[in-house]
């Protein structure tokens, strides 16, 4: 692995971690429930990217399934929360 790649990966991981921290701040702070849900969704997106970056760093594809599952199913929680806020119940 080239030095450049190694450095970029470290920087990416750090930045993604910071992004997660920002999202978590919105989740904690609010103020509205909608803000928290959006924070929650961006936390998932960042986590997915983090996992892909981890995969790149380790050079294996084992971690990609987890990223795939987040990519495919990560939105389900967000949708459920949004539906709850919109209609007061998830399944009508």
């Amino acid at each position, binding site marked *: 692995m080239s030095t450049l790649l190694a450095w970029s990966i*470290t920087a990416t*991981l*750090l930045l*993604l*971690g*910071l992004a*997660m*921290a920002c*999202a*978590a701040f919105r*989740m*904690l702070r*609010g103020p509205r*429930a909608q803000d*928290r*849900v959006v*924070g*929650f969704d961006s*936390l*998932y997106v960042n*986590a997915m990217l*983090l*996992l892909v970056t*981890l995969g790149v760093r380790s050079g294996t594809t*084992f*971690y990609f*399934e*987890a990223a*795939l*599952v*987040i990519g*495919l*199913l*990560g939105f*389900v*929680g967000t*949708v*459920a*929360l949004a*539906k*709850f*806020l*919109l*209609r*007061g*119940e*998830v*399944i*009508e």
Partner: protein
Amino acid sequence: MPYEALLVAVLALPFAGSFLAALFRANARNAESWLAGGVALASLALAGAAYPLMAEGGIARYSAAWVPGLGLEFVIRMDGLAWAMTMLIAGIGFLVVLYARYYMSPADPVPRFFSFLLAFMGSMFGIVLSGNLIQLVFFWELTSLFSFLLIGYWHQTAQAREGARMALIVTSAGGLCLFAGVLLLGHMAGSYDLDHVLAAGDAIRSHRLYVPALILVLLGALTKSAQFPFHFWLPHAMAAPTPVSAYLHSATMVKAGVFLLVRLWPAMGGTHEWLWLVGSAGLVTFILGAFLAVFQQDLKGLLAHSTISHLGLITLLIGLDSPLGQVAAIFHIMNHATFKASLFMAAGIIDHETGTRDIRRLSGLWRFMPITGTLAMVAAAAMAGVPLLNGFLSKEMFFAETIEIHDGSPVDRALPYVVTAASMFTVAYSLRFIRDVFFGPPPTGLPRTPHEPPTLMRLPAEVLVLACLVVGIVPGYTVGPILETAVRSVLGAAVPEYSLAVWHGFTPELLMSAFAMAGGIAVYFLLRSWLLVCEGPPLFRHINGRRIFDRVLVTLSWRLARRLEEIFGSRRLQPQLRLLAAVALLAALAPFYMQDLVPRSMARPELDAAFALVWAVGIACALGAAWQAKFHRLAALILLGGAGLATCITFVWLSAPDLALTQLVVETVTTVLLLLGLRWLPKRLEEISPPARIRWYRGSDFAFALASGAGLAALAYAAMTRPSPDSIADFFVENAYTKGGGTNVVNVILVDFRGFDTFGEITVLGAVALTVYALLRRFRPAPESVPVPEQQRVQDIDDDAHPDRKKGDTVRSAMAVPGLIMRLLFPVIAVVAVYLLLRGHDLPGGGFVAGVTMAVAFILQYMARGTTWVEDRLRILPVRWMATGLLLAGGTGLGAWLFAKPFLTSSFSYLEIPLIGEIPMASALLFDLGVFALVVGATVLILIALAHQSVRSRRAPRSREAEATTLAPMAELR
């Protein structure tokens, strides 16, 4: 060895017959009788064929491995005593079957009767032929069970139900005591094998556990044989059909107890405790039974009490603890079976032909049924101990035995006088049975005109009475060899001198007999006029065994339980949780003290800044969730999701992709699940300020939570900072591919190495899902949660206000794009689920993850368009999914048996498929498929059941008809 086959056949025949008998038509009386009679006769013939061996004093044995791991063998063992009992059970069984053919009315469902009767016969064979004490207890409990079913045969009457229940509770409780006693016996003797136990008599008697074991065994034997103070169940068991009474309460069930005492006498007898415990129980029962029998007004009640009395006599003989006593006991077991069975049959005939069993209403039956009368008379005379009948012989032996000095105590010295007095009552009730029923003026007002029964119905009683006579007149030629065989197997070399002659000269026992006869006749004539009007026996009229039993039962099973529940139980969730947490806390503290588990220092690990950031996010989310959980549930739920995600990333970071995958899908489903539940939780009422008590509770809960969390952290830290011991992990890693055929160790462990555990877990999961579903069917939400949520009301009002909009347009437009995406994603997610399932054996994935993923696909459809829309188009049958999964997983496990491998052994190979190429195939994949189906079913069932609450609560005002059409897909679940 032909004897082995013979033993197996004797034991197996009745059970096979019982199974067959259950399959006949309800009114097949003749076919059932042929079958049952044939089985009984075959057993009799088979047992009879073993006589040559028995006469030599040999023992026939058949043994097979039962639980080899515990050193238990299934042993069928026949010696002289077991042989004699087998002959008795089979012989009287045959006669009872013949009798029952005519006794049972065409309206009775006979398959049930004969099936139970045969199974009972088999269980009795099991008791007498067991060569292993545990096995004996097993058959012992079987007799309790089948006697319960037989006594309760006419379950439409409350009397039968009550009698059956009482018999079951008393005898099976005794059976449990016997089981405990047998375990002690086996412990003392070093083996459960009967031969070992009988040979270890000295070791047992000198063991310090001898007395507890003796008491426990006696509790079993005395309850079964209806000995004081457990005698009360027997009269109530008379609600059974008379053939059952004739069989159970003369030759079999009640004889099991005394049989066991004789059987164990060589191992446990010969001590002071035996003499006093067994002897006094027998003496009291003998006197009490005889006394109570005189005052009965019901024919069967009289016979029941006389049975109690005679069993007391036998128990007393065994308790007298001498070889001669055992001889007399065995002899009386046989004699009592013959005369009592015939008396029961006679009582049944009288009941059958006159319609009543009340002695006060019966009289002068002699002129209507002289033959039955003669039979009853001879049998009753045998019961009373009249010379030239078999009862006289064993009674003489009994009297002779009571005269002997045993321990010289005052009771021992008084014994001959006491038993002579009690025998007067025996004579009195025998006389009453005959004189009040068959003599006197013709009966008036009987339900039916009495007449003789069919010849064949009388035949069994005739055979038995003939046996009484023959044995009574020429004992030496008839019963002599049989008795000799039985006695020798119990006493071995120590068989005492005994004589079966009818005339022994003028002996003290003859004098006692004469006194008993004369006294009995006197008692009868003195009491006669009063007996016909009295209600219940004097002195004991107010002591009702049944009432005491009921009261004890109510106290134990209801009052005491209630009381304990009040003291120890709580229906409130908070104290329960507090207790759980406290126990867990204490349990976790224990290793710190006991194992000296101190945290050690460890090398500072390399800290990755990004990882630290993820953890900071996770910790912040977890703390926030805990902080908000009380009043802002939605915020807490979102934060919980954040903490969960941090955990997933940690799993990936620490190279556990399997865990991460599973955790991720579980997070998703959990969020949806909690949100579904959130809908039904009440809103916070801000204006309520909690009282000080509640605030205190909250404070203590907080302390608890802190302590638990800190404790768990300390425990984890201490465990992680010490070198890991040699664990089984290495084994799994090394053998996953070679033995399990997979490279994903986690999955191979789940579906192969620990397949049985997984099978159990998915069963539990299925049970939990069904329970949740069942609970939710009865769920009634709080009144304030029932109405449509505020958001929907506002949107509906808005829709109604605009003329160009229809109701529900707002949500339709809001969900148009996401809804479409969610619907289109269904096949995509399904493909991912299949992908995860198929690759699971070699790469991260597996049935569980795949199942939850598939469930998410279904739930998405529900979220996109609502319950009604989905269920109009998609038929999901979660229970079928679960059943299929469980059957598939179990079937895969069973499949291994076809290849003569243990349950759940997996196999794998490579399969060549055109176009795709060579792919690995493991039977574990099929198992995993079962896991997958069950997980899909269980998850969907729980989520849909929750989702249906909205539909249900809204449906309430609507008609039932509308409900049936909108919810047809779920109809089969309801």
